[in-house]
Structures are given as structure tokens and as C-alpha cells.
């Protein structure tokens, strides 16, 4: 059976067509019309795959707005299943998206989870704000991090205050590379504080769009003193998980819209 997993996050929508493995996927920016965003990203994946799905699962913030989905599941459950399917040794998932970050303890499904509070610190949004203050593209942050020799110390946890700290480092003539590495350390310490609330067991898998940033992986490994695995395309892990949850669910012949 071909299943589609659609993850409508706060910043991007992801769709995966899945049979025994990923057949095709698509990523698009979220527009205010979530239903249409989901349709567009689904059509795009179908076009790439040349087949359509028999069963559709929606996840992410916009899941309840996807009226054509057969099932709706939260991204917590989906990231757990997705990461576990890619790395069967996975016991912990750290997902850093655009607006949320979460640490999930995985056993057979979700054992426990913690999420960031309302504040944007510790999420992709934080890095986007800082990148724009530094006038660099977020996709370049990883390379810049590698070239840092003495990361600065960002003491504010609040995004607004941290931005003004960054601005003052720029004014002092600090190297951009060192500011970037300092920001990655700040985000990592924020995530580490969250991770302390649950039992962090190896292997740890990093997912979400921010996982593409090598600097965040570096900083997390340093602060948590643990090796971190990153899937080839970390941004679609939630969508993969959605498809897998859907497969299990449909094969058990269940009908309800909720997990």
C-alpha cells in the first residue's frame, strides 16, 4: 500500500510518498492557507513519484486543517516512528523545527517527551532572526561555524535580547564565524536544559530543518557529550513517520480519524 505522510509545520510543509521505503518527497514553504499548502506539496510529491496514495496521514501544526487526510497524528509520535525507521538503534529524538523544539524518548513508540516553552529561543526561528541580523543565509551557518576559533558567549536566552547582543558583537568588530558558533552554543544549551528533564539515552537522532545545520549538531555533541546521528534528509522525518504510522494503523483496519 502506498501511503502519504504530510507534515504541515509552522514554517514548511513536507510530503513523503512511502511504500516499503520513500518513493518521492517534496518540501514547500507554508502559506496562510494550510489546506492548499498541503494539497500543493502532496500534488508535487505525486508528480515526482508518478503514483498517488491510497491512504493519507497529516501531522504537524497544521494537521487538523488537512481535510483530505484519513488520519491525524501529532508530530511527536511521527518523529519518533520516523527516526526509529531510519535508525533502528534510536532511543532519543531531538527535533528542531521552525517554531518548536522537542526531545522525545523512544521505546515502542513515544515513552516521554518535552517541548520548548512559548519562547522562540531554541528553535529555527531563533537562528533565522540571528542570520538576518548577521546578513547571512541560514544554510551557510554550518560552514561559518566550522571556521570559528573562539566562539563568543551569548548570555541572553531571549531572542530579542540575544539579537541585540549579536548587534553589539558586530559593532565591536567580532568575527561573524565566532558569533555564529556562539549562537549555536546558546541554542544547544537551551536544548540540553530541556533534555535533562528526560532520560537521554543513545542513540540520539537529530531531525527537523535545523538538523541540516552542522554547527547545531557540533554544539549539541559538545554540550551533551554524546554522538548524534543525522538522517540524510532530516527535514522529512516527521512525514516519513506519519506514513509509517498510517501503514500500521490502516493495516489494523482502524477507522477513526485520530490515532
Amino acid at each position, binding site marked *: 500500500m502506498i501511503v502519504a505522510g504530510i507534515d504541515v509545520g509552522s514554517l514548511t510543509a513536507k510530503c513523503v510518498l512511502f511504500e516499503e521505503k520513500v518513493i518521492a518527497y517534496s518540501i514547500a514553504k507554508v502559506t496562510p492557507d494550510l489546506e492548499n499548502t498541503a494539497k500543493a506539496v502532496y500534488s508535487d510529491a505525486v508528480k515526482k513519484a508518478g503514483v498517488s496514495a491510497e491512504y493519507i496521514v497529516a501531522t504537524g501544526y497544521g494537521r*487538523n486543517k488537512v481535510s483530505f487526510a484519513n488520519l491525524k497524528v501529532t508530530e*511527536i*509520535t511521527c518523529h519518533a516512528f520516523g527516526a526509529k525507521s531510519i535508525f533502528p538503534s534510536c532511543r532519543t529524538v531531538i527535533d528542531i523545527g521552525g517554531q518548536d523544539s522537542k526531545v522525545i524518548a523512544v521505546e515502542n*513508540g*513515544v515513552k516521554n517527551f518535552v*517541548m520548548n516553552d512559548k519562547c522562540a529561543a531554541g528553535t529555527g526561528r531563533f537562528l533565522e532572526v540571528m542570520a538576518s541580523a548577521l546578513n547571512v543565509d541560514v544554510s551557510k551557518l554550518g560552514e561559518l561555524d566550522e571556521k570559528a576559533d573562539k566562539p563568543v558567549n551569548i548570555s541572553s536566552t531571549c531572542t530579542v535580547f540575544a539579537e541585540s547582543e549579536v548587534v553589539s558583537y558586530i559593532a565591536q568588530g567580532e568575527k561573524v564565524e565566532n558569533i555564529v558558533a556562539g549562537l549555536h552554543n546558546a541554542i544547544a544549551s537551551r536544548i540540553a536544559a530541556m533534555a535533562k528533564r528526560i532520560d537521554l539515552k543513545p542513540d540520539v537522532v537529530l531531525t527537523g530543518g535545523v538538523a541540516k545545520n552542522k554547527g547545531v549538531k557540533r554544539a549539541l555533541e559538545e554540550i551533551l557529550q554524546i554522538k548524534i546521528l543525522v538522517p540524510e534528509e532530516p527535514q522529512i522525518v516527521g512525514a516519513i513517520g506519519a506514513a509509517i504510522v498510517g501503514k500500521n494503523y490502516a493495516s489494523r483496519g482502524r477507522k477513526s480519524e*485520530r490515532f
Partner: protein
Amino acid sequence: MLKKMKSNEKMKQLMTNYYMMGFASEHVSWITSGAPVEILYAMDIYPFYPENHSALFGAAKQGTYYAEVAEKLGFSRDLCSYARCDIGCVVSSVNVPNPTFLFACNNICNTVVKWYEVLSRIYKVPLFFLDTPFVRKELKENYIRYVHDQLVEFIDFAEKITGKELSDLKLRKTLQLALKGVKAYKDALLMGRNKPSPLTAFDAFINMAPIVCLRGTEYPINFYEEMKLELEDRVKKGIAAVDDEKIRLLWDNIPIWYRLKWLGEFFASRNTCIVADTYTNAWSWMIVKDKSNVLESLAETYIFIYLNVGIEHMAKAINDLVNIYDVDGVVIHSNRSCKPYSFGQYEIQKMIEVPSVVIEADMVDERVFSEAQIVTRLEAFLEMLK
């Protein structure tokens, strides 16, 4: 979809009468929720509860408006929203019984100290402040003596202001009534042990005002006995509060008043029943200790209340409820307003015997509530429990 209890209507009548009584009373004391109200009732002094009043405004979704009024005067947004809403109401001349004096006890928090000082300046009336030592591990004898002596002073204070005398017999009678009321209340709440449960914590929240405001009078005794009968009747007829109850949960902290109905429907539509909570149970634990000395009994009772004890005690209380009500998990409301209630929740979480989830919100201030974030946390938690 929510099954309304008949008690709700009776409660509304009872509380309307209670508020009317305030306007007709010669002497009114404003009082914090954790202060020994029995002394006031024994002296025929009417107790007015700003916290209850703010909760009412919160449930009516007017709390944020009045909180903003207080903020415009310079009160910080970090201050408890019961306090902000109350101060906002007072300066906006919302009709409330004017105080003859104020009675604040810090067994719930230290916010009430400054809050009541502000009220004292606004109304130009005297304030009596009862200081209860915090019980980190064990309650010591000298704590009881310390509070006992202040109670003696308080009685003197109240007698001088009102010109009335406290009769020892009347105080004992009032304590008896309070004890009976608490017992009736507890028995009604315990109906939540039934599977499926005939009531939800939301029913308990809606119907908690009488035990808070009228404790020490006949009213709560009759009210909660009837409420229990209604619940027994539901059990007999096989009526569950939530259809097809699959998951049973415990709620920790003050309810999110402006979202009571929304949360009730959220859980009910997911076959989940919140069968009990720590907030309403805080009053069910107010069993006045039986000592020969009445004031010592009162002192001990009011020192050892839920928000005035260390987290080991709090965790134990939660685990007791987990076992009594046989729940599958705990929803922990991290309440931006109430620091003593929310502080330590992450530590307590580790000590709870069943899975739990933390949601961040505020009991009265709607600006703090983020629906999408809360839905995701709660749904993920329910998925995890399945």
C-alpha cells in the same frame, strides 16, 4: 456534548445568595483562600474572597480586561492574575462588598502580602497579616505555637474593630460545621473513583466555590450531600461523565478558567476523563486536627496546606491521588500566575508514579494561552498513553 450537572444551577443560586449576603453584612473581611475563615464565621463577619471573585471573572472571560487595567497602573504582568484582576476591578469600581478590614495569610504565597497592602491603602482599612512558617520537611511544635499566638492576636484585632466578642462555643460549633462540610465535599469528589467516573474535574472546579467561601456554615454540607446523591444516581443509571471512558487523568494546578468548557470538550471528545485534581482536593485535605485547644488545631491545619509544604509532600499528595483515583497519567498546568504552585513541577514530575505532561498557561490571563501548542502537547500525550 458535556453533561451538565444539576448541581451547577444550585451552586449558582447559592453563590448569588452568598454575594448578596456580603452587601447586607455589617462587617466584611476580605480574606485569602487559605486563611482560617472559621473565626470570621464564628463572629458573624462576612468573608469576601478576592481570589474567588477573580476566578469568576476569569471564567466569564473578563479577567484579562481587568488585569490590563491594573497593568496600566504599573502592576507587572508577572504578578498573579488573581491579584491583577482584583486590583483592576477595585479601581474600576466593580460592585463588591467594601471591607471593614483585611485578613491575609501567607500559607498560599507571598504575593498576597503585597496585594493586601495595596488593598489596605486603597480602602484605608486595617490589615491583619497571619504568618505561617513553610514546612519543608516536618511540622514543628514551635510553628504551631507561633501561629497560635498570632491567632490570639487576630481575635483581639477583630473584636476591637467590630466591637463583637468571639464565643468559644460558637467557634467550636463553626469548626464542627467546617469539618462536616469538608467531609461532604470529599465524599462527593471521591465519586470520581467509579469506573467510568460520573464526574470530571471540570464539574469539581465549577462546584468548588461553596467549600471555599462558605466553609463553616451549613450550606456546603447540604450542597455537597446533594451533589453526591446526583452522582450516585448517575452511577446507578450507568451515566458516565465522558462517553466510553478510555483514559483517566489527574489535573494539577489551578484550572484555566476561561478554557474550562473548551478543555472539557477536548478531553471528552477523546474519551478521556480528568477524574480528579490537586486544586479542589486542597480543600478536601482541610480536615481540622482534633486537639483539645481549638486555636492550636486551627494553627496546625492551616500551616500544613498544599502550597505551604516541600515538594516531597506535594509529590506524595499527588501519588496518593494517582492511586485513589487509579489514573493513567497527570496533566500538569504550569501556571504563569501561581509561582508557589508551579515551582518545582519538573522535579515533582520525576517523582510521580505515572506519565505526565506539562502545559503552559495561566488561570485568568488569556494572553498566555496558545491553543495550537497546547493541543499538540495534549494530543501527543494521549497518543503516548494509548
